[in-house]
């Protein structure tokens, strides 16, 4: 991985100084606007002793688990569904209206239904993330299939490829750049949905931590939770980019 450029370090340091300066000026009461030092204390506190019976690492682990399961599931389902929609008119006609209808609805709106249907366990949380992530993958997969250059398909046909061989050996690899674009967008969607998902009667998780600490005016913990989600989201994004460079190193050359 490349080194982080100095200017980003400088911006980060300047933000910390400004944050500390505003907190130290006591314009806002310290329980509404925690200083970096307060936040760091809250961070250590939740890390070592936990908050309401759950440590930061446990919250992190359960949230990561929910996001990962939902995300991997969404990628698999999304790619398969996307391909099915491009290969079968029937599948497309059946699925597309729902896709277009569901896409603009914020995932929060499903929560009451999901609780009624699936209760308050892990299932509704994972499903909520999955449902909000699948369309992103499907749409990008369809894009990828449709943007396969015609000359590649003609070349393969010319060399004797049948329909199945064209799909697997030409169209699938050709659509990978778009699938990865979808995966990068989807990881952001998955993390944003997580907080909503953990509003569903959760007793652990980063979303729950933020929500719970907020109701008790523990703003240091709230900021801690936000930063941890931000860092995790960033790391997963970096991970997907590394995977992308490994799987499709040719992306920028075509």
């Amino acid at each position, binding site marked *: 991985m490349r080194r982080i450029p100095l200017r980003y370090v400088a911006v980060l340091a300047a933000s910390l100084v400004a944050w500390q300066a505003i907190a130290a000026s006591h314009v806002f009461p310290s329980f509404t606007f925690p200083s970096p030092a307060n936040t760091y204390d809250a961070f250590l506190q939740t890390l070592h002793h936990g908050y309401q019976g759950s440590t930061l690492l446990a919250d992190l682990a359960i949230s990561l688990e929910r996001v990962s399961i939902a995300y991997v599931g969404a990628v698999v389902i999304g790619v398969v569904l996307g391909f099915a929609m491009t290969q079968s008119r029937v599948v497309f006609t059946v699925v597309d209206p729902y896709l277009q209808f569901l896409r603009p609805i914020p995932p929060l709106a499903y929560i009451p239904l999901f609780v009624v249907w699936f209760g308050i366990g892990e299932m509704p949380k994972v499903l909520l993330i999955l449902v909000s992530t699948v369309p992103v993958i499907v749409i990008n997969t369809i894009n990828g299939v449709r943007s396969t250059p015609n*000359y590649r398909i003609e*070349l393969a046909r*010319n060399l*004797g*490829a049948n329909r199945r061989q064209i799909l697997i*050996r030409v169209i699938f*690899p050709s659509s990978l750049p778009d699938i990865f674009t979808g995966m990068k967008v989807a990881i952001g969607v998955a993390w944003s949905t997580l907080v909503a998902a953990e509003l569903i009667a959760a007793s652990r998780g980063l979303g729950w931590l933020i929500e719970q600490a907020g109701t008790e005016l523990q703003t240091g913990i709230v900021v801690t939770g936000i930063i941890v989600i931000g860092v995790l989201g960033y790391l997963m994004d970096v991970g997907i980019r590394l995977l992308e460079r490994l799987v499709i190193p040719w992306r920028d*050359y075509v």
Partner: protein
Amino acid sequence: MALRVDRIFKTFDGDDAKRATHQVFDEFSLDIADGEFVAVLGPSGCGKTTLLRMIAGFERPDAGRIIFDGGDVTGPASDRVVVFQQPGLFPWLDVRHNVAFGLQLRRRRIDWAPVDEILSTVGLSDFAGHAPYELSGGMQQRVALARSLVMRPKMLLMDEPFAALDAHLRHAMQIFLRELWQDIRTTVLFITHDVDEAIVLAERVVVLGSNPGRILGELDARDIHPSSTDLLDNPEYRRLRHRAVELLGEEP
């Protein structure tokens, strides 16, 4: 006879009111003998690419027959392989696997000897493990040629394959192709709008006119080779060149 194009008709429907239906071929015929190297020379829009696509089987004539190797052409097949202007290599495969692509469609485990042999023929043995985008345009086009030749096609259909290359590289590729053809003697149909390219490469040059596509004349160019030096001092070359330009100039 390797190929017989027998009184074909082909029209393209206009997309809208402005573009009327366009008659590309109106009872067009062309015969190509086994092992012959024929260049079809014509201005853009004369239908030469459409002709090649119909012979390849990507498109069908509206009427008339295209008979290849004794049978009607009904679709693309690996006995007539096209080399396009763009090499169109698969970037996710290395050079060796690009060349083997057609063979691997037939069976999972292939004999790699012909692949490596053809790579050596096109002078790319040292680049077998490279990605296509690590190669120059000329090298990529040689990989595309190798990918076609490894199928042992009865006919090579080349659609301005060197048009995207710079002049120096194009000349080198012309010499390479002509020498290769002298070794393997596959039937070649080579489409070009470049008068010099048609004359130096082919044994027979078919000059095409447009609206509808028709043969304006044919030239016997078997004595002119791309590797000949001082072409401009060669009276035969100058005569052929003059004749080709004259034929093309008769276009309204």
